[in-house]
């Protein structure tokens, strides 16, 4: 096996970010460069200056999680089109932190896996937070929110999600406090509208500001009339997608009335 493929494969399997640049048109079609986030390269596109420019661009594309074609002169010149290079970014899977080892958790963990998340389930109660109950999760932690955020908080970004399903202020207040201090793209909090109203008071008391409150999707999920844990998991995952893409979808947060109102007749 060749070194290029092996290095690419190892990075992907180890869940390390890596980019693959391939000349698809022009001189040396098929030539490849494997680029790591620190700019280390393996392989060559056939010209040292082209390698230097493409690897620099690949580091940027990788950081942004973008995949696409860029054009260069034969020696890497900008605004020339002698060579077309396909730069493919391989990012590690996004993280989904799920707080609360309840029935909804198992369904959400399954749906999260379907979407390609690295799913971590956490609950401070060792009786409930077991691998046996959540075999689909990548990791089950018997831990308080602080410990979970100490481990994962720095790694959370726009593509990651925090889902707080405990609806117990002992857990969800500290979980929200720590979640809004990260760059995580989605924070969903489960509970009725009444539960959320009292939760908001507690959050204000512990000093979570309005900017933090505005990031919360609570009650969690889209307003699609879901009832079962599985249906709720679909509504939460759909909200995560809509939130990331910025597309309009009816969130429960933005509607009024009972979450589980009976279906319309007819």
């Amino acid at each position, binding site marked *: 096996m060749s070194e290029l493929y092996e290095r690419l494969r190892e990075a992907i*399997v180890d869940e390390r970010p890596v980019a693959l640049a391939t000349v698809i048109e022009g001189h040396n079609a*098929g030539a490849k460069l494997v680029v790591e986030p620190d700019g280390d390269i393996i392989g060559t596109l056939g010209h040292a200056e082209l390698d230097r420019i493409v690897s620099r661009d690949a580091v940027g594309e990788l950081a942004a999680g973008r995949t696409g074609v860029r054009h260069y002169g034969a020696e890497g010149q900008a605004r020339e089109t002698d060579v077309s290079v396909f730069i493919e970014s391989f990012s590690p899977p996004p993280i989904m932190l799920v707080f609360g080892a309840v029935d909804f958790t198992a369904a959400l963990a399954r749906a999260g896996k379907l979407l390609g998340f690295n799913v971590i389930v956490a609950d401070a109660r060792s009786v409930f937070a077991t691998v046996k109950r959540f075999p689909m999760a990548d990791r089950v932690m018997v831990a308080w929110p602080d410990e979970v955020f100490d481990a994962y908080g720095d790694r959370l970004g726009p593509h990651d999600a925090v889902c707080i399903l405990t609806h117990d202020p002992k857990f969800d207040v500290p979980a929200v406090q720590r979640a809004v201090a990260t760059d995580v793209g989605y924070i969903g909090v489960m509970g009725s509208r009444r539960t959320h109203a009292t939760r908001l008071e507690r959050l204000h008391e512990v000093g979570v500001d309005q900017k933090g409150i505005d990031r919360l999707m609570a009650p969690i999920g889209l307003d699609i009339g879901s009832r079962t844990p599985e249906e709720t998991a679909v509504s939460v995952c759909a909200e995560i997608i809509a939130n990331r893409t910025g597309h309009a979808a009816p969130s429960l947060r933005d509607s009024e009335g009972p979450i589980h109102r009976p279906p319309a007749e007819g």
Partner: protein
Amino acid sequence: MKEILSDLDAWRAEGRQVALARVVNVEGSGPRDPGAAMAVSDNGDVIGSVSGGCVEGAVVVEALDILESGERRMVSFGYSDDEAFAVGLTCGGTIHLFIEPLDW
């Protein structure tokens, strides 16, 4: 390519000749984004996909041809009314694929 990696490993371990097709560009409406990949082995087995099933059959033909000739190239599929394309995407977009032997 991530999705087909373990199957690719198995094929390589068996010493099979493999062609790799990757979506590099999509114009207009297309079912899969750049980076979507499928692979075809020398005995015609297929893993992965590059569209919603519209052009996979034609990609297999191209891939086997490329395995035989060893010449990597760009292949495009567009709206099927265009005579330049034997098969097309029903959604009306155009996808550009880079197909090559997995010899690296």
